[in-house]
């Protein structure tokens, strides 16, 4: 009896489906026979000189290839269609492709299918997924992982970010809105002037905005100035006066706690007020900072490139006689940042790191002179092109994901084994570097793989995800709210993947659920296994894996859904699932 149920790797690809259920597998059987997803198939339209008519892609390819030539390195082969497809979904919209999406892409024989898919992922069809993913990424960048901070409204922050990424507002405006935000940070009934962008600074104004200064420089300019608060930096050109001159731009901001009948903070309001300076003369509003030898020094607002602005601390207003006075210091700062070459470099480096696993510098937000980039001309050139393209993030993404280095296999070859940035060397991008999915992406991918689409998107789903994420957060107990995550390949992560509620849910065999639908479909057993592999790993099982799956069925004594559950558990727990490759 058992042998009759054995899964074999032979399938009947053209077997018509007797079942009328409108499930995504419907078209699958027709594809099984014709395609070899696991083999290193050269994707159509991905020849070495291919840049799809996009000059910026051509520029990237040339610059990266020049680096290979310099290092005497040979790039790996192209990734398979399945690998590339999984990769681009994960990196652009933060989840793996559904089975139907994967099949549609692999089946497409058009030479332009890659740019077409990228176009779709960046277009209207996927705008909600896109906004959700980049909201996740930027929430962590802007306000960290701490869900307990009462000075910050995560829903408010997310609302702002979702809107920004849905509309694809230009990056310079995005930066400006965050740096100059005023208004209420939470969207509450009876609260006027909601502005979710205020959450970037609402929790960073303690002690005269030290954190606001450090984080603005780090995130938007790639400058690590936090150490120069107390002293000149021992290793780079950072000087203490620069920190405090930058800090002076934030001295008009107030982060006000607003209350509504109880003692708990209800919301934060970010406002700009006149800054009278530390000696009370708002015309020349100065601050003082302490040198290590105990002497005090004065500072006025001066940008990192040495540009001074007016020293007035008054916020802009028109006097009775019609005379206009004052300066909006944060607005002046945003204008200077927009014009600075550091701003596009910082975002290009961050985005490159997001897609390629390593930025041109490590960390991606440290572009100081002490930390030379791996590909300086490429970084500068991309930054200039990004400015020419009006800071359109979707264009920048398009260039990167259509580039040759992004399309390479993650399998190292003899010609490039020594290109391994995990050894501390500068990356050469000769093959695609492995990295673990972010926790948010894993969560979304599990929902995708199990077709639990109804659980995705929207603020309620985001809160649920936050709750799940909180199990990994480690707070460091400092006033700066530093945090870290145990979602880093350690034992707690494996325990969660082995036994956590999310996995129990993903592997449940309840009626109407994913496994139930696969089990009850009229596919042959091997096709059912293939469905599981495709859904999670974007490839078909090997002969050895089919054989291991057969062992499972024997072990379950013919309980097919039980065996599918065990196999599904193993697939979801595998390195291949959680590592973006």
């Amino acid at each position, binding site marked *: 009896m058992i042998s009759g149920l054995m899964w074999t790797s032979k399938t009947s690809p053209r077997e018509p489906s007797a079942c009328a259920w409108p499930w995504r597998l419907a078209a699958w059987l027709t594809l099984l026979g014709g395609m070899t997803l696991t083999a290193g198939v050269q994707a159509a339209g991905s020849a070495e000189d291919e840049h799809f008519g996009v000059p910026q892609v051509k520029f990237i390819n040339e610059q990266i290839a020049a680096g290979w030539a310099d290092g005497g390195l040979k790039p790996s082969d192209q990734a398979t269609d399945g690998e590339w497809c999984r990769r681009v979904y994960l990196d652009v919209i933060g989840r793996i492709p559904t089975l139907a999406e994967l099949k549609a892409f692999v089946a497409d024989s058009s030479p332009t299918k890659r740019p077409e898919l990228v176009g779709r992922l960046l277009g209207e069809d996927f705008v909600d997924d896109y906004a959700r993913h980049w909201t996740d990424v930027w929430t962590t960048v802007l306000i960290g992982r701490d869900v307990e901070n009462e000075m910050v409204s995560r829903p408010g922050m997310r609302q702002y970010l979702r809107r920004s990424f849905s509309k694809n507002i230009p990056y310079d405006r995005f930066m400006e809105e965050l740096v100059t935000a005023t208004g209420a940070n939470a969207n509450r009934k009876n609260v006027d002037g909601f502005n979710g962008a205020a959450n970037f600074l609402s929790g960073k104004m303690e002690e005269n905005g030290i954190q606001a200064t450090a984080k603005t420089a780090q995130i938007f300019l790639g400058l690590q100035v936090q150490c120069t608060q*107390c002293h000149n930096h021992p290793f780079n050109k950072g000087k203490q006066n620069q920190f405090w001159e930058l800090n002076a731009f934030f001295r008009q901001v107030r982060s006000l706690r607003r209350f509504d009948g109880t003692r708990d903070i209800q919301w934060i309001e970010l406002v700009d007020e006149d800054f009278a300076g530390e000696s009370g003369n708002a015309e020349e509003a100065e601050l003082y900072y302490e040198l290590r030898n105990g002497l005090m020094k004065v500072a006025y607002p001066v940008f990192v490139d040495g540009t001074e602005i007016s020293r007035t601390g008054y916020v802009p207003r028109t006097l009775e006689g019609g005379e206009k006075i004052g300066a909006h210091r944060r607005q002046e700062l945003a204008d200077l940042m927009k014009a600075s070459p550091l701003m596009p470099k910082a975002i290009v480096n961050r985005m490159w790191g997001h897609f390629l696993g390593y930025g041109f510098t490590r960390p991606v937000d440290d572009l100081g002179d002490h930390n030379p980039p791996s590909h300086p001309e490429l970084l500068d050139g991309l930054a200039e092109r990004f400015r020419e393209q009006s800071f359109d993030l979707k264009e920048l993404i398009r260039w990167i994901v259509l580039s040759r280095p992004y399309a390479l296999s993650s*399998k190292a070859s003899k010609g490039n084994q020594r290109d391994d940035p995990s050894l501390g060397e500068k990356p050469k991008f000769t093959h695609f570097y492995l990295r673990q999915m972010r926790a948010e992406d894993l969560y979304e991918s599990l929902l995708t793989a199990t077709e639990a689409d109804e659980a995705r998107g929207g603020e309620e789903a985001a809160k649920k995800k936050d709750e799940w994420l909180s199990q990994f957060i480690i707070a460091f107990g400092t006033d700066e709210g530093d945090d870290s995550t145990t979602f880093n390949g350690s034992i707690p992560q494996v325990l969660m993947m*082995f036994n956590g509620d999310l996995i129990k849910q993903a592997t449940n065999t309840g009626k109407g659920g994913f496994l139930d639908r696969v089990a009850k479909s009229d596919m042959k057993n091997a096709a059912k296994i293939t469905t599981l592999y495709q859904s999670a790993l974007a490839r078909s099982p090997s002969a050895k894996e089919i054989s291991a799956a057969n062992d499972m069925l024997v072990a379950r004594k013919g309980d097919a859904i039980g065996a599918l559950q065990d196999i599904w558990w193993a697939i979801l727990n595998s390195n291949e699932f959680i590592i973006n490759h």
Partner: protein
Amino acid sequence: MSSMFDLPTGMNRRHFMSHLAGAAAMAAPAAAFTNTLLANATDLKKRHKAAILLWMGGGPSTMDIWDLKPGAPTGGQFKQISTSADGIAICEHMPLMAKQMHHMSIVRSMSTREADHMRGRYYMHTGYVPNPNVEHPGYGSVIAHELAEQVSDLEIPPFVSVGSGSVGPGFLGMTWAPFVVDSNGNVRNLDMGIDPTRLDQRLRMLETIENKFIGEKRGGSAEDHKKVIDKTVKLMTSKQMEAFKVMKEPKDVQEKYGTTGFGRGCLLARRLVEAGVPFVEVDLGGWDMHADIFPTLADRKLPELDKAMGALVSDLADRGMLDDTAIIWMGEFSRTPNINGGGGRDHWARSWSVVVGGAGFKRGVVVGETSSDGKEVVTEPYSSQDVMASVLKSLGISLETTFTAKNGRPMKIANSGKVIKELFT
């Protein structure tokens, strides 16, 4: 079958199954197996070296705790009291530790340069300043790595961090990463909820997939993933996990340590070291007192610290474990001698103290001295590297040990720090 994930050391498959059965139904563990383990545990307790790092996240003001300057303008509000060690006086709000100072020594001549939380945290944990091209291993990873052979029967992680993430394993790899638990010893998602036979079958299927991916030579993280799974399986099925159940300690013992998070963390540390864990870090955060420092210290922080640390030192001594167990008390830096306008102290790394004791350390001595206002070290200054070298020496770990970083560069253990000689002679 031969390609199972590594089973707990020295076990055959059948043994593994009984092991799983034991974990699934703790009420009736296989008797023979339990006996073996208990015997091992006793053996371990007798011989192995270990270290407990009491990590004071945020930067505690050491001149209000271990190196008081009563009467100086910078001296703050506290008086000092004499202690069980001749000639050593500490803060009046540390009365229980005052009775234990003959077991401990104070290094009052620390002088470092990192006064940013994250940089200081990294530097004090690793002996190295942050470097974009290499990640260095911290105390826990280094000591667990060096002492692992002494505790080869250990099935639970050799580096446990209670209440904080500590610093990662750097180039030593995820095998030596901290295992993070809360101070109640709770380990999430430990229960598999399926029978052990079936788990075993699932693991075999999983291994097939893992091996295929590893065989494709895509990078080290594929292999690391498998190693961590192996450790997780060991841990899930180990009787030694009992060590985490700190709430099973008698009530009076729990009360002696204090029913605070840090108190339970210190008690948990003692249980873990008893079970064979060579390194435990216990975190007490909240020292970043830029305002109102004196009432915060006197009313909240110091009583919590004093009770737990005092209990830990005396308990280890009473149980005969102190001679094999090093204790290190430190934060990422200290706080300014000058008291700011808000009645607080800011970040300060130039002159401060750490406290060590147990293992091979000389006890009841003070090393070094600061100026009368606390702003300068007036004797030979010591660094993070020097403290680390001294801790390693106290545990009998060779300072000639050299690691090879992933890039092939040799890395001297403790960054070639000098042993603080006054702590040994």
